[in-house]
Each structure stands twice: as structure tokens, then as C-alpha cells.
């Protein structure tokens, strides 16, 4: 590999970025500030020291206004605040708690039933709150007290919550997939569809594990003291509670999958649907709407701030030859395409320890995208899925990140869960609890890696007709 002097700047940029984010200053501003500072450093190195020839100067930064504007006139990203709106509104409607109460009654007779309830709610909630911390925190606050009161084994309870909570970033309509689609230049609809089977597989793996665990160690997943026989009334009640939110999410996804609506349109309608749901549950009033709109703005704002920061960082990095450096160093490892993807996933797994999916999707994916797109992979696109390689890769990244967020000692899910645990729950309980779920994640990841059809088949069927 041909090492250019500019590459020192690239490496210095990465090192400064990593060093500075650990000070705890907001990531968005570290990215923006490092980008700006390295423009100055590159100019100094070009003109004063004559070491490099990046051509960066004050005027180059003028490009950034246009770059920021291209985030603003991005039609697909409109879906982001709309899905956040939908998630917050669904939360305010109290459907999660309704489901929790009624499903608990239904699964009351099954060993581990409560844990399964948590998983299922995690999956349904996942669809609404694509922010990983959000589902973990919500599930933790909602179900941990109940599980502990019912004398559940602490690690089992904690592991279930952490794992089900992280499913949120994968299961559509996940805002992470919206951003990945934007960054990799693939269709968000394809990613949503591609995520269906991986999501289902992981959900099924979790539930199977809990059932087996409940059979093997009945005392660790006990029944509720006041459990009753399942009556038809309970079944109906569960239906009544699950159907409205499930219908809403199916309608949103269905309209995207069947090509009736664009992702943006579906997200707007989803937000409206969630508002009606709140109205139906008699939770809607002025202060709820105000809280939802203000929090929607706040949440979208911190995501978009990183968008802007990453844009600045990426522009300067590119001018210094960062893309070539990454491409040539990945290629110079002399690995086959699949081994290369393995290495990349390992890297993303490690980055997931301290960076959230937002930063990874915005900084790392655009750098890796071109390399992956150029690989000779045998991912079946059935002739109808554009960029099947990238769709498959995006889902691999999604599941890898999810696993990373669960992994001790610094996984995000653990960190969030610890934040909402009552006193008396030790960090080691969480570590013990997530361990089996990490194995399940790796099984899921292995399946997706070995059978790319799991990802690409569904989008191909939807568009094939």
C-alpha cells in the first residue's frame, strides 16, 4: 500500500476524535470541531510546512453549507422525526402497560411466561421506539419490578429486558435502518423488509431459550402467586389490547412493503395513527401533545446534530484521503470478501462499546459502504433487490451492533438498564443475565451470515410481483 503523507492527518484526526469524545463533550460537536480544527492543521501543513497537499483551506469549509442543506432537503429523512413522534405518542397512549397487564394474565400459567411477555412487548415496542435506550429503559421500568416481585431469578429478568430492549434498533420501522439506508444509498423499504426475518429469528430464539430455561429451572422463573386458569375472557382481553397497536404497525409496514406508500408517507400516517390510539385510550390532551412534539424535536435534533458533525468530519477526512486509506488498508489485508466482512463486523462490534448506532451509521458506514459494495459476494438479489450486498451488510451490522450493546462491561443496554434498576440489583447480575442472550445473538448473526437469503428474499418477493 502506498502511504501518502496526508494519511498522517487522517490517523491524527481519528485519534483526536476518539480522545476527545471520552472527555464527555457532546459527540456532535467533537466531530464538527475536529473537522474544523483539522482544516486549519491541514492548511498549515500544506502551506507553512509543505508536508502535504490536501488543498484544504477556509473556502473548502464553504462546501459545508451545501452539505447541511442536503440533509435539510432530504425527503426520506423526514421519516425520522415522524417515527419518533409515533413512538413517543404510542408510549404516551399507555398501550405498553395495557399489553403488559393483559398478557401477564394470559401467560400466567407458563413457566417463564412473564419473561416471554416481556420479550413480546419488547418486539412490539421495538417497532415503535427505535432508540435502543428508550426500549431498554421503558421495559426496565415497566417490567423489572413485576418480575422481581414474582421472585424471578434476577439475571434471567435482567437479561430478558436488556436483550428484548435492544431488538428495537433492528425491528422495523427502526429509525436506525432509515439512517443506514440513507448513508449506504439503499432503499429503506428493502432494509425494513430485510429486517423482518432476522428480527423474527432472534425473537424466536429468545422465547425458546426462556421456555427451556423455565422447564429446567422452574424455581428461577416462577408463576405468579395469584395466577388463574386461562379463561376465554383473558384471551379476548389480550386480543383487544394487542390488536390496535399491532394493527397500526402492520399498517405502517404493510403500506411500505406493498408499495402503497413511501416510507415518509407511512411514517406520517403512523404518527397520526398513534395519536388516534392515544385518543381512543383517553390519554390525549394538550399537554401530552405538547410533550410529544417538544420531545420529538429534541430527539430528532440530537440525531441531526450528529448528522451535521459527521458531515463536517467526513468532508475533511475525505479531503485528506481518508477514504483511500481505509479502502487500501482493508484491501491490503489480503482477505477474501467474507473474511473481510468478518473483520469489519468485529471492528463495528468493538466500536459499539463506546459509540451509539447513530455515530456508527453516520461515520463508519459511509466509509465502509464503497468497499463492501465493491466486494464479490454471492448475495442473491433475485434480480429485483438493488444492492443486495449492501442490504445484507446493513442487517449484519445491525445485529452486530445489537450484540455489542448487550456485551459487558460497557454495552449500552447494560448501562441504561443499570440506570433504572432498583437498589440491590448488582451489575454482575446483569452481566450474568445477558450472557446467554449474547450467545443467541451470535447464533442469529451466524445464520444471517450463512444464509443471506434470510435478508434478501422478502424484499425480492415484495417487489417481484
Amino acid at each position, binding site marked *: 500500500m502506498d502511504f501518502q503523507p496526508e494519511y498522517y492527518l487522517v490517523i491524527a484526526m481519528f485519534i483526536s476524535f476518539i480522545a476527545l469524545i471520552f472527555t464527555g463533550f457532546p459527540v456532535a460537536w467533537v466531530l464538527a470541531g475536529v473537522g474544523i480544527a483539522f482544516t486549519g492543521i491541514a492548511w498549515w501543513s500544506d502551506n507553512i510546512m509543505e508536508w502535504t497537499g490536501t488543498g484544504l483551506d477556509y473556502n473548502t469549509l464553504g462546501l459545508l453549507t451545501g452539505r447541511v442543506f442536503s440533509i435539510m432537503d432530504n425527503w426520506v429523512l423526514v421519516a425520522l*422525526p415522524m417515527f419518533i413522534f409515533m413512538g413517543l405518542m404510542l408510549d404516551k397512549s399507555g398501550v405498553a402497560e395495557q399489553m403488559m397487564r393483559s398478557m401477564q394474565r394470559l401467560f400466567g400459567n407458563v413457566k417463564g411466561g412473564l419473561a416471554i411477555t416481556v420479550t413480546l412487548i419488547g418486539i412490539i415496542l421495538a417497532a415503535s421506539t427505535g432508540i435502543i435506550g428508550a426500549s431498554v*429503559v421503558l421495559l426496565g421500568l415497566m417490567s423489572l419490578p413485576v418480575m422481581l416481585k414474582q421472585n424471578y431469578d434476577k439475571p434471567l429478568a435482567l437479561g430478558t429486558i436488556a436483550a428484548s430492549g435492544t431488538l428495537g434498533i433492528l425491528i422495523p420501522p427502526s429509525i436506525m435502518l432509515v439512517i443506514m439506508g440513507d448513508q449506504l444509498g439503499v432503499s429503506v423499504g428493502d432494509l425494513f423488509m430485510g429486517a423482518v426475518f432476522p428480527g423474527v429469528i432472534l425473537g424466536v430464539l429468545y422465547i425458546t431459550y426462556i421456555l427451556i430455561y423455565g422447564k429446567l429451572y422452574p424455581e428461577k422463573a416462577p408463576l405468579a402467586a395469584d395466577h388463574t386458569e386461562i379463561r376465554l375472557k383473558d384471551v379476548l382481553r389480550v386480543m383487544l389490547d394487542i390488536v390496535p397497536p399491532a394493527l397500526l404497525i402492520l399498517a405502517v409496514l404493510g403500506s411500505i412493503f406493498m408499495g402503497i406508500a413511501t416510507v415518509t408517507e407511512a411514517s406520517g400516517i403512523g404518527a397520526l395513527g398513534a395519536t388516534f390510539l392515544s385518543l381512543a385510550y383517553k390519554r390525549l390532551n394538550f399537554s401530552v401533545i405538547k410533550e410529544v412534539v417538544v420531545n420529538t424535536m429534541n430527539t430528532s435534533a440530537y440525531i441531526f446534530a450528529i448528522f451535521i458533525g459527521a458531515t463536517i468530519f467526513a468532508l475533511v477526512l475525505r479531503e485528506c484521503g481518508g477514504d483511500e486509506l481505509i479502502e487500501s488498508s482493508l484491501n491490503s489485508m489480503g482477505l477474501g470478501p467474507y473474511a473481510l466482512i468478518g473483520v469489519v463486523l468485529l471492528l463495528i462490534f468493538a466500536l459499539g462499546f463506546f459509540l451509539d448506532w447513530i455515530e456508527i451509521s453516520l461515520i463508519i458506514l459511509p466509509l465502509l459502504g464503497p468497499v463492501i459494495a465493491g466486494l464479490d459476494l454471492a448475495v442473491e438479489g433475485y434480480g429485483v433487490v438493488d444492492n443486495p450486498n449492501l442490504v445484507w451488510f446493513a442487517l449484519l451490522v445491525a445485529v452486530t451492533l445489537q450484540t455489542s450493546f448487550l456485551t459487558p462491561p460497557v454495552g449500552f443496554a447494560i448501562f441504561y438498564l443499570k440506570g433504572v434498576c432498583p437498589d440491590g440489583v448488582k451489575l454482575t447480575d446483569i452481566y450474568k443475565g445477558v450472557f446467554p442472550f449474547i450467545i443467541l445473538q451470535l447464533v442469529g448473526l451466524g445464520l444471517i451470515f450463512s444464509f443471506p437469503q434470510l435478508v434478501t428474499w422478502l424484499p425480492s418477493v415484495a417487489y417481484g410481483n
Partner: protein
Amino acid sequence: MQEKMQNNHVRIPIVSFLNKIVTKIAETTAWLNVALVLIILTQVTLRYGFHNGLVALEELIWHLYAIAFMFGISYAITTDSHIRVDIIHANMSVKSQRIVEILGILLLLMPFIIIILDHSLGWVSESYRVSESSSNPTGLSYRWIIKSIIPISLVLMLIAALAKLIEESVLLISHNNKRHNTPGRVSMLKHLFHPQFQNNNQEKN
């Protein structure tokens, strides 16, 4: 959320004043999200009901979305909700946290705001001069209006950052080392997503 955030602040009149500007503007802008939902609904209805989507409406949608998130960025500075890597930060002394904040604002945030602001002003006035409009003939004209959202939101960010800078400096100098509530997402998320059946929820922040 608002009262809570404000209560944590030690009263420094100028800081409260600056924060109020940002908060008022942003909280009003936040309602654009409702407008966004309604316009998307209209667009879908037109497209399906009358086979006639409007380019202008489509453009209006991203205009509103852009204004909402761009103005929100300053608000997120005021409410301290921008994402941090908390692993080390959370265990630092309050004094070190304040120093990080002050240096960060001066060396990372402010230069970025000022430089982009400088560039964006010329860019907007150019758009105004040539009376740029949408590249689509049936789209919206007066493109400079939406473009001017960039400098306006940068000014708002500058105000929010200045308020934070003054606040942190005053507190650092006055040795006020009371751990002020929050930075960190756990408490924020806890507030956002508290279970609805704990209606009498006592936040234990």
C-alpha cells in the same frame, strides 16, 4: 420537562434570558411536527383520492421538517440532551466536567458555529440575489427563505452555547460544585419513557 430543566439551573439572569429566547422559539417551532403530520396526510389523500400529488406540498413537507430539527439543535444544547460518551465523564468531578464544557464550547462548538455562519450568510444572499427557486417548475419559489434557516439556527445555537458558557464559567468561578442534574441520557430517557401507569410517578433523579 421544562420546569424541571429550569429548576436545575442556578439563576443567572443573563443565562435565563438567553435560554428563554431559545426555549420559546424552539417550543413554538416544535408544533411544526403536527403540521407535518397533517400535510403528509393531505399529500397522501391527494395522491390517492385525486391522483394528484403536489410538488409544492412535497417540498413544504421537507421545509417544515428542516426548520423543526434545525431549530431543535439549539434547544437540545439548552436542555443538555446532545449525546455524550459518558463512560469517563460520569465519573469525573463536577469541576472537571465544567472545565471540559467550557473548553469544548470555546474550542470545538464555537469555531464550528461561527465559521459555518460566516459561509452561510454569503450563500443565502447569493440565493436571494438570483431569486433562486425550486429546480422543479411547480415547486416552491423563494428558496432563500428555507436556506436562511441555516444561519438563523446557527445564531440560535450561538445563543444557547453562549448561555451555557456563561453558566458553566460562573459556576466554576463561584466554586459551585453541586452536581447539577442530568447530563446523560439515562435520566433523560427515564423522563421521556416513564411507564404510563405510574401516574403519580415520583422521578428519582
